[in-house]
């Protein structure tokens, strides 16, 4: 369905030296340097798969999506989606895909939402009867009814995102690209959107590529993730494989009344852990411990901690995606 072969994107960036002198200098003789946003990334996605694309800010996720959607031309390498080249056959290609950029809208800012859909219907040549059915379906999944008559500029972020997703699905695309579709949304709306994506994927076998910073998006939606950092692919596989391979990181945080609590707690000695499996940071009363739950069960950690010091307000949670990436790097993994 989707094949990316050694995708690479380089940008020229003007570098300005600091201060007024630098500004004047760059006015006459601008210095440019080459920035490689994406370095030879290759991957494949099967039909009906949901692929999660993760990585820290500036890792190159959006650039990859923009190349896959035909907005940017790769510096080298190629991608084929549904047998089409996004840049060469742009007009016929984009008819088969839906795109949502969480930070931009494809809706007409000044038009009521309903009319925006009317415009899209003509653009994508959706016949009247299937348009009606489609709208009814999208309405049910994304609950658009409350605001379908309001101009887009008056919508809240959550409403706008739902409207945007509906707009990208109006023409029943074969592939759906979602670039941070849950950015800035509250828990309820996030959940709504995830369920809608899941529903459409299972009902229509829509292939979905999604980028996000929210691990919950990935965990609920996709079986497979591709992780990139500094433009290179660092992991490609299932979430289970990721966890099995790099350890299940948990973060234990608590408030303690015991003075010198950090010194009293000797996790590495007690559990005989390597440096990779645990990190400890304490700031006054609050302490954070990140540990590999494959090496030490959570219950052992808790009982040891509670036995050593007096603790109030304790919590254990999954480490976020940045933490996993950080550990991936500390372990020197690549490819």
């Amino acid at each position, binding site marked *: 369905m989707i094949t990316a072969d050694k995708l690479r994107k380089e940008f020229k960036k003007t570098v300005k030296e600091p201060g007024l002198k630098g500004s004047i200098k760059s006015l006459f003789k601008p210095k440019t340097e080459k920035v490689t946003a994406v370095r030879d990334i290759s991957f494949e996605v099967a039909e009906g798969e949901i692929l999660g694309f993760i990585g820290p800010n500036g890792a190159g996720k*959006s650039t990859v999506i923009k190349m896959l959607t035909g907005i940017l031309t790769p510096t080298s390498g190629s991608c084929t989606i549904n047998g089409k080249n996004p840049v060469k056959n742009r*007009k016929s290609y*984009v008819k088969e895909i839906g795109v949502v950029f969480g930070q931009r809208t494809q809706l007409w800012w000044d038009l009521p939402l309903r009319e925006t859909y009317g415009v899209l219907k003509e653009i994508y040549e959706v016949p009247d009867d299937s348009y009606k059915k489609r709208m009814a379906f999208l309405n049910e999944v994304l609950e658009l009814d409350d605001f379908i008559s309001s101009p887009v500029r008056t919508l809240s972020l959550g409403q706008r995102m739902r409207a945007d997703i509906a707009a990208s699905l109006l023409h029943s695309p074969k592939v759906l690209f979602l670039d941070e579709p849950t950015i800035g949304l509250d828990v309820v709306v996030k959940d709504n959107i995830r369920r809608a994506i899941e529903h459409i994927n299972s009902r229509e076998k829509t292939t979905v590529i999604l980028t996000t910073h929210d691990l919950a998006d990935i965990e609920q939606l996709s079986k497979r993730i591709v992780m990139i950092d500094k433009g290179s692919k660092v992991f490609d596989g299932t979430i289970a494989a990721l966890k099995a391979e790099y350890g299940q990181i948990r973060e234990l945080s608590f408030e303690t009344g015991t003075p010198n609590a950090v010194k009293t707690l000797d996790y590495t000695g007690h559990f005989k852990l390597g440096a990779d499996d645990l990190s400890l940071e304490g700031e006054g009363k609050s302490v954070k411990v990140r540990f590999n739950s494959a090496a030490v069960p959570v219950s052992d950690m808790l009982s040891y901690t509670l036995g050593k010091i007096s603790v109030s307000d304790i919590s254990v949670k999954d480490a976020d995606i940045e933490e996993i990436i950080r550990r991936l790097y500390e372990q020197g993994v690549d490819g």
Partner: protein
Amino acid sequence: MKRKLKIYLPFINAGIQEVATYRVNWIFYMLGNALACFVAYFIWAAVYRSGGGGTMSGFSMPQMVVYIVLMFLTGTIIASDGAYVVGEEIRDGAIAMRLIKPVSYNATFLFQELGNKLPTEIAIAVPMIAAVEIIRTVLGGAVQFNITCLLLYILSCVLAYLINFYFNICFGFIAFIIKYLWGANMMKNAVIGFLSGTVIPLSFLPGALEKVFLLLPFASLNYTPVMIYMGKYGGAELLYFLGLQAFWALFFFGLSKLLWRSSVKRLTVQGG
């Protein structure tokens, strides 16, 4: 063709609704233009008074008044802020949202702008033409309205608008290279104001210069339609100038396609 119209007609509709949303902005825009028109009138009135009130380079004072009003009308009818809009979209990356739709980038702009302009055109053209005719009748002493001239004027305005639109689109693509267009736009407007005869009629210029300017695409923008309406062109001359307009329209249409193809590769999509 019908299929195409069906795709792009909604953009006209979207354009009209945009104007309807920002009515006050529109009113101020029109007032600003009218003011500029009055300023031009008073300057020329002073010039003619000190010149003794005769005919200058083929223009009598009443004709000059008509010229000023027609220039104002034509300028409004053929106005295009394509360069600004394209430049902005490139600068803030909104262009990406047009690229993910199965439509021609230039055509969506053309139709959206037509939608923006249609209310303006209708609201201003009818009273302005009436005003011009009243001025001509009062100052000239007889009715001078000529329906052929009016129809040819409309045709010429359509061509002029297409030239202006595609020229502006081409100009906007410079933003792919320099990223922010505001300064370049100011310069372009100043140069065009002079070369298109908006500031002074081209016939006031020395003979050789006038000939060169008439060949340039900018004379085809404002000057040609106005001269046609005033009945200054006739016969072969008329056909020649309409043909020249058609040539420039096609030229910039082709150029915009070419530039689009080469510049879209340079797109970087700033921000997000």
